[in-house]
């Protein structure tokens, strides 16, 4: 069942170095619009490194080098993009919920305000819309002035998702967004991710293979900096082509 969605990210012959250490080797991958792409693999295999290359978050780390090309809608993100513009189009949700130490409202309004939106009525609308889309509006609507750090971990993570949605990105990158959460909060976020798929392209790193199975359309298996296998999630889990993939998903590995 090959999807007809258009290609969002196209990664070709990509290498990644931290100083002398090569963390990714010759990665070739296509990420399609309105799909959920899961990245799996043992710890240290380069999932986060790969994910963070897609919005150039690795630029913040000294001495890193990217070779090959990554294009977003056909435009090279390392050559022909302003990094700020890129990050506005490609949002990110982190492993540990990281709301800013300010009110819920200010957290969500942060991005829109950066982009020059000042009018209270407009901001109010964006805040409500984003919180609704992140399935947390009902829980916080009476308490928007409350400090976001006073919320539970699961709520904080949904605030972070809402904060990302508020700048209306096209792609959302998520690095183990539920690993710090309990099972119920995890299910809520998973439902939410499924919901978001309609409007966004999502790339998610997960250590939890059931989770990858539950939510993703495609899955990429990484091992020691290499992309071992990339295919439809159902296929990868039921009928992997590579022996290493099979070892990993059947738990005979890492």
């Amino acid at each position: 069942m090959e999807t007809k969605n258009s290609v969002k990210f196209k990664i070709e012959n990509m290498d990644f170095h931290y100083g002398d250490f090569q963390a990714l080797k010759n990665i070739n991958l296509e990420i399609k619009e309105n799909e959920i792409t899961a990245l799996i693999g043992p710890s240290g295999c380069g999932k986060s490194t790969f994910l963070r290359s897609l919005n150039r978050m690795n630029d913040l780390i000294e001495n890193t080098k990217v070779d090959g090309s990554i294009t977003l809608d056909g435009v090279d993100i390392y050559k022909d993009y302003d990094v700020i513009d890129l990050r506005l189009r490609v949002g990110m949700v982190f492993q540990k919920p990281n709301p800013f130490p300010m009110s819920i409202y200010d957290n969500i309004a942060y991005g829109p305000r950066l982009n020059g939106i000042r009018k209270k009525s407009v901001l109010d609308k964006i805040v409500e819309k984003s919180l609704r889309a992140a399935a947390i509006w009902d829980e916080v609507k009476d308490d928007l002035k409350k400090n976001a750090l006073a919320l539970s971990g699961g709520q904080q993570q949904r605030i972070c998702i809402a904060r990302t949605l508020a700048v209306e990105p096209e792609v959302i990158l998520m690095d183990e967004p539920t690993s710090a959460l309990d099972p119920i909060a995890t299910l809520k976020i998973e439902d939410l991710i499924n919901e978001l798929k309609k409007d966004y392209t999502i790339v998610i790193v997960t250590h939890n293979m059931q989770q990858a199975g539950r939510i993703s359309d495609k899955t990429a298996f990484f091992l020691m900096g290499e992309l071992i296998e990339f295919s439809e999630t159902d296929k990868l889990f039921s009928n992997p082509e590579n022996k290493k993939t099979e070892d990993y998903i059947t738990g005979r590995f890492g």
Partner: protein
Amino acid sequence: MERITKKVRLGSRLEKLVPGLLLAIASISILTSIGIVFTLVVDASHFFKEVPLSEIFSKELAPLRSKDPSFGFLPLIMGTLTTSVIAMLVAAPIGLMAAMYLSEFVKPKMRRILKPIIELLAGIPTIVYGFFAYNFVTPLLMKWIPDLGAKNVLSPGIVMGIMIIPIVTSLSEDAMSAVPKVIREGAYGLGSTRLETTVKVILPAAISGVIASFVLAISRAIGETMIVTIASGSSKQFTTSIIEPMQTMTAYIVEFTSGDAGSGTIGYYSLYAVGLLLFVFTLCMNLLAKYIIKKYRREY
């Protein structure tokens, strides 16, 4: 096996001794503080018995007038506040900008070189700052402000500000660097520039540390003695003009401990009253700092 149990027993005996030892050491500093406050209060009480509050909070300070000396402390309070405010007007913006620069704009390697250099400012003896204010800054300022007195509060205020920059920078930088990396990445991930991240996210997140650094710097300015003794003069005239000389509380104490007031006279006891006032000022500052840190502290 045997050796291990022996060691454990020895360790546990030592363990019992340690709290007592620590208590003794801690008591020394606590007792010293109590002793200082006690002397201040006792000796100051002689003063307060004889001089009415209405006089203390008046503008007329003439402690050496042989007939009917007057002990209005407002000129001293004014001197101390003015020099401290000028110092903070210099130190707060410069110190904070340096902290933002060091914490967010400089590579770690560069930071390790620059921070100690800034902290060096704090190690210069205050007498050197005093001469710097009197012999260099005041003449320099006279070029723009012809009416500036040879002794004035503007110049020592500025120099004192320079002296306390490292307090602001060092503590603010610590507070800003302590903001977790994930918060910083969250801001960059939303398309913030470096400056936006620093000003809109890191600074608010570190605000308790930043304010605490300000309060500590103010305390330091209030207590500073040598610079103002040298460069701001000993005028006891009440004025609000920063180009004129003023005496600060600390400089007043210096003047009178160096021999002008005979022991047991009311002038002598006035030192303790001023000292007590100074103590109350800095105590308030410290309590304020504690309160602010508690109120704005963020747990991550």
